[in-house]
C-alpha cells in the first residue's frame, strides 16, 4: 500500500477510447489581451486602446448571460502556466489531445472580430486571428486544423479573407455564427458562400453570435438555461433561411456544418418545412427541391450537445433520419458542457457507425488524410 498525495489531481483523462477520433469543435483562447498585436497593424493597437471593441449588443463587456463555469469552461482546464482555459497548446495536448486520442482537431475560435461594428477593425482582427491560429496552433501540432474566421457582416471583406486562405491546408472550414444581424440566408452573406464554395471549404455555423438580436424570437429571456436551449431555435431559423433563400440552389457545392446546436430538431424542422412548402411553393419558386432534400444533401452536424432522451432508441431513430454519415463528433473542449468521448454514445452502435461517427465522416468532409 502506498498513499500518493497530490496538491491538485491530475487532469481527468479518458480511458475508454482506444481508437483515434476527430474532435470537430475545439475552442482555442488567447493567453493575454495583447496576444494578437504581432498580427495587427500598429494603427489598430492604439485604436483598441482608445476606442475598444464594440459589438452589436448592449453589453460592452462580457457575455449577455452569466456562464455556468468561469469563462464558460471546465474548471480543471486552467493551464498550469496561467491564462484562461484553452490558451495553452502544451496543456491542451496533455489534458485533451493525447489522452483522448484526437487525430484531427478542428479549431473554432470564438470572441474574434466577428460581429464587431467597425467593419475595418472586424476584418483586421479576423485576419489576425487566422494568422494566430497558424502560428500558435496548427503549425505546432499537425493534428489541429483552423477555421477561417471572417468579418461576417461585411460580405466583401469576408470573401477576400476566404480567398486569401484558399488552398492553405492549415484551414479546413470557414466559421460563421448563428446569431447575426440578419438571418444567414440573406444576400449580404452570399459573397461568403461564393468564396467558400470556390475554395472548397465547408462552412461551420457555430451557435452563438453578436448580431444584437435576442437569443429567442420572443425577446431577451431571464436565464442562462434559456440561452442554452435558445441556440437550437436560433440555428433552426438560420437553417430555414439558408434553405428558403435558395443558398443551396445558388451554391450547389456548398457544404455546411451545424456546430453546437444539437441535432434532434433536424427531422421535425425538415418535416414542417416540407409540409408548408407543398402549400406555399409559389412564394419561393427558386427552390427546385423539397427543403428536406437540401438539408440532407448540404448539412453535417456536430455532436455536443447530443440530446439525451430517456430511451436510446429515440436517439438512434433521430440519428437514422439524419444519417450516421452526417454526424461529426465534437467535445467542445475546454468549455464546460464538454462531452467525454468514451461516454457520449450509448451502447448498441455498430462498429462501422462508430468509426464513421468518431473519425471517418470528419476526415472525409474536411478532406484530411
Amino acid at each position, binding site marked *: *500500500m*502506498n*498513499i*500518493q*498525495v*497530490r*496538491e*491538485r*489531481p*491530475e*487532469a*481527468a483523462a*479518458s*480511458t475508454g477510447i482506444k481508437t483515434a477520433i476527430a474532435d470537430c469543435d475545439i475552442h482555442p483562447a488567447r493567453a493575454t489581451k495583447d496576444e494578437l498585436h504581432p498580427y495587427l497593424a500598429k494603427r489598430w493597437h492604439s485604436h483598441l486602446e482608445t476606442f475598444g471593441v464594440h459589438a452589436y449588443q448592449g453589453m460592452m463587456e462580457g457575455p449577455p448571460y452569466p456562464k*455556468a*463555469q468561469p469563462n464558460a469552461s*471546465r*474548471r*480543471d482546464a486552467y493551464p498550469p502556466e496561467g491564462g484562461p482555459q484553452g490558451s495553452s497548446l502544451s496543456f491542451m495536448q496533455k489534458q485533451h489531445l493525447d489522452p483522448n486520442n484526437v487525430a484531427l482537431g478542428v479549431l473554432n475560435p470564438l470572441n474574434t472580430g466577428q460581429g464587431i461594428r467597425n467593419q475595418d477593425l472586424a476584418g483586421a482582427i479576423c485576419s489576425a486571428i487566422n494568422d494566430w491560429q497558424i502560428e500558435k496552433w496548427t503549425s505546432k501540432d499537425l493534428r489541429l486544423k483552423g477555421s477561417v474566421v471572417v468579418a461576417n457582416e461585411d460580405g466583401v471583406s469576408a470573401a477576400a479573407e476566404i480567398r486569401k486562405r484558399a488552398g492553405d491546408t492549415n484551414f479546413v472550414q470557414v466559421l460563421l455564427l448563428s446569431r447575426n444581424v440578419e438571418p444567414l440566408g440573406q444576400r449580404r452573406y452570399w459573397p461568403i458562400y461564393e468564396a467558400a464554395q470556390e475554395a472548397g471549404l465547408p462552412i461551420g455555423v457555430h451557435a452563438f453570435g453578436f448580431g444584437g438580436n435576442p437569443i429567442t424570437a420572443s425577446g431577451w429571456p431571464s436565464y442562462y438555461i434559456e440561452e442554452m436551449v435558445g441556440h437550437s431555435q436560433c440555428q433552426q431559423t438560420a437553417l430555414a433561411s439558408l434553405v428558403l433563400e435558395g443558398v443551396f440552389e445558388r451554391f450547389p457545392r456548398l457544404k455546411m456544418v451545424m456546430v453546437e446546436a444539437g441535432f434532434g430538431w433536424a427531422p421535425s424542422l425538415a418535416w414542417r418545412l416540407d409540409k408548408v412548402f407543398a402549400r406555399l411553393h409559389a412564394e419561393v419558386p427558386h427552390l427546385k427541391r423539397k427543403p428536406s432534400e437540401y438539408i440532407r444533401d448540404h448539412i453535417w452536424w456536430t455532436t455536443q450537445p447530443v440530446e439525451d432522451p430517456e430511451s436510446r432508441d429515440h436517439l438512434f431513430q433521430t440519428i437514422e433520419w439524419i444519417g450516421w454519415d452526417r454526424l461529426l463528433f465534437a467535445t467542445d473542449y475546454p468549455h*464546460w*458542457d*464538454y*462531452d*467525454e468521448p*468514451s*461516454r457520449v454514445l450509448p451502447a448498441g452502435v455498430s462498429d462501422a457507425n462508430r468509426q464513421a461517427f468518431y473519425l471517418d465522416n470528419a476526415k472525409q468532409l474536411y478532406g484530411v488524410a
Partner: protein
Amino acid sequence: MARHVIAPVDELPPGSRKFFEIDGRPIAVFNVKGEFFGLLNRCPHQGAALCEGPLIGLASSSDPGEIEYTKLGEILRCPWHGWEFDIRTGQSYCDPRRFRVRAYPVSVEPGTNVVKGPYVAETIKVAVESDYVVVDL
C-alpha cells in the same frame, strides 16, 4: 476494509482539501469547518475529477419566488457540467436515484490509537502526541 492514516490533522486545516491515491483509487478529503469528508474523485456522470469543483450551498425552492439557500459549503459542484453532490453522502441532486458518488468515512484519531493499529500508514510518520486523519476504505 482497511483504515488508512493519510495525514496529520494540521496538514488539512478547515477549508482545505487534499487529493490522494489510496489503494489505486483517486480520493479527495475535505475539511469543512472542522468536519472531514472523503469522496471518490470521479464524477459518475462523465468522469471529471469531481472534487476540483467549488463547494457551494443548495438553492431550493418550495414555490416560485421563494428561494432557500441551505447546506452552505456542503454541496460539491462538478467542474465540468455542474452536477451537484452532497459532500456528506455523495448523493447527487440532479438524479439522486441513478447517480451517487462513492463517499468514504473519514475520522480523526489520536496518535496513541494510530500507533496501536490496525492502521495502514506506510508513508506517514506517526507520533503519539498528534492527531491523524484516517480514511476507511
